[in-house]
């Protein structure tokens, strides 16, 4: 049973509506749009646009992890158009995550997976991660962090993986 459950979990994308086919359902957004004109797969993607470099423009989703999860893989396809450089080196089109406890309190600092500036065609970004004791949820965030331009997001995925799969990403 454990094995069957594991296989089921390992195959499942724990992100709700990661391909934005159901518009922004499942995501908390701050002025995001979906677009049928530019996408990596399916018929839609999410687009973040900002013309104000003093603002954080983004979306996020909190993903609950199955009990005793030890290894996860987070992936997303990203495309950027004319993303400016910000005042800080980390400013840009961002894909990051935070670890949360049961009460959705943040544990530690956010961890960056991608920080992009300029123009870039669709590209896969991924991060394998070991779930520390006490972490129950992952908050996935996409943002234009204090820059202008457009960020397209598609195929967001978070899945439980085995240790062997995790080691392939080292």
């Amino acid at each position, binding site marked *: 049973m454990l094995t069957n459950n594991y296989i089921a979990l390992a195959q499942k994308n724990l992100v709700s509506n990661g391909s934005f086919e159901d518009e922004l359902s499942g995501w908390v957004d701050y002025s995001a749009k979906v677009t049928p004109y530019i996408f990596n797969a399916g018929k839609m993607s999410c687009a973040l646009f900002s013309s104000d470099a003093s603002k954080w423009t983004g979306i996020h989703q909190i993903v609950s992890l199955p009990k005793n999860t030890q290894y996860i893989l987070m992936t997303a396809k990203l495309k950027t158009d004319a993303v400016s450089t910000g005042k800080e080196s980390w400013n840009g089109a961002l894909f990051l995550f935070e670890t949360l406890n049961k009460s959705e309190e943040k544990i530690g600092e956010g961890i960056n997976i991608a920080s992009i500036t300029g123009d870039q065609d669709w590209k896969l970004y991924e991060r394998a*991660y070991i779930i520390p004791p006490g972490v129950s949820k992952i908050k996935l965030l996409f943002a234009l962090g204090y820059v202008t331009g457009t960020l397209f997001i598609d195929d967001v995925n978070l899945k439980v993986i085995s240790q062997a799969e*995790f080691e392939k990403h*080292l």
Partner: protein
Amino acid sequence: MKNIYKLMKYTCYGLACLSLLFNTFLAMGQQVRSTTILLDQLGYYPRLEKSAILTKETAANSFELLSIPNQKVVYSGVLSDQKSTGYSAIKTRIADFSNFNEPGDYILRIPGIGDSLTFRIGNNVHQELAVAALKGFYYQRASFALDQTYAGKWYRAAGHPDTSVYIHPSAATKNRKADSRINVAGGWYDAGDYNKYIVNSGISTATLLSAYEDFPTYFQGLKVGIPHAKSNVPDILTEAIYNLRWMLKMQDPNDGGVYNKCTNLDFDGMIMPDQAIAKRYVVAKGTAAALNLVAVAAQASRILKAFPSQYPGLADSCLAAATHAWDWALKNPKLAYDQDTMNKMSDLKVNTGAYGDQDFEDEWIWASAELLASTGQQQYYDAFFARLNASVNLPSWSYVGILGYYTLIRRQSQLSAAYSGMTSILKKRIVNIADRYVSSLKTNAYGTVMGSAATDFNWGSNSGAMNQSILLINAYLFTKNTAYLNAASSNLDYILGKNATGYSFVTGFGNKPPMHPHHRLSFADGVEEPIPGLLVGGPNREKQDGLKYEHAAPELAYLDDVNSYASNEIAINWNAPLVYVVNALADLQRTLSGSSK
């Protein structure tokens, strides 16, 4: 050879003498010794890779090995294409004679360039160094008279008894008020100075303990000639325990916290230790100090369990000290040692080394790994696993996380199945770094891992080289891939002369060793030769000592000058990896079979 070096060195012999030597060489049919053929001055192991470097341009494309004394050509080879470092103007060519394995004495001859120094191929080429590097710690003992029987001409009176050391205001507590006194006798002097620092003692002691854990049979047979050795206790443990006992004294038994250092307010002058009588203080407890004691005491506890009659109760005392310090650290998880801030709050300003670490995640990794290995308890596994996402780097006093990796891999078979599974992650990370080193070795202009980038030449660069080798040896131990062993050996060759400076960086060893290390004991003892077996810092492109260096190239930024603390100091955390590498290779090369290629 040392005599020839000295002969060359003293200008009183002058040009006339050199001319005479030159003519004599020619008359004997020999070529002039070239200072541009650089090699391991102590020699090479038969079954490991062997190469020399040439730093002078030549039209020649071949080289020969000649046996000594009969000067018969025993091997011919082809010089590599010209190589460039990418960070300096120096061009090199490499003479690789790995395929020649016959023990004996040889010179390497390059047409139009000349002959190398005489060097040896043999199974014991580094044995004297292996002994001396460990004995270097005996010479660093504080609060201890060095008897002529053991210390030879470097015997000396005891200094810094440290039996009545003041509590600095930064370390004062309800139970130990400022200006009260405690006994923190013993331990090793840290470096060229006479102070004792827990943070740097931690990695140094642990490296010796790890050398023993990795090669216990070998070290049972290694005698270095130190006093107070107990029956069946290897000398490496005797020496490590000398410092361990001091580290234990640096713990406040009232709360488990650990003082950062035992120190003067200012560095002593260049005098012998018995003449240095400045007041001594223990200064400020801190998280790094506590976790260093946790790691070392936890590691020592499992090793000392095998020596109950020689050290009754010490294993238990170590484990108790480790868990007490762990509990203190849990309550004080981020207490940094900030000397500048501390000095603003006290009239007793401390101006000695700070070892001020700000990031303790690596200390938590190391400490939790050692306690997990020694106790098997879940809480330490959780603490380790919680930090398994952290990246790992080469160890130094301020970055110790990977020491925990080494330990858990070494102890994998003793861990429960629930814990041992994750060691494959640790191995993968170490192999990733080792593979990078092997890859850089293939392109490096010096045929070594060390010096692949200009940033390798930092303060204590030689210890970086030795820690690279330790990582490679650890990778070899669990993969048995000899490429890692050869890469590790290449860095030892670097240390012993196969480098741009042509120095062997260990005092007393090689044809061109440091004669003027920044080391009070060697400077003030009235003996011409420095204490042997000590690894100096090595080329340091940052040159923080402000001295005038002859060369701008990073790999040449070295001065054999007593004032060059940035490139020519010695330190316990630099000698410890030398001890590990020299002895590990001496042991492992015997187990290899066949050709080095």
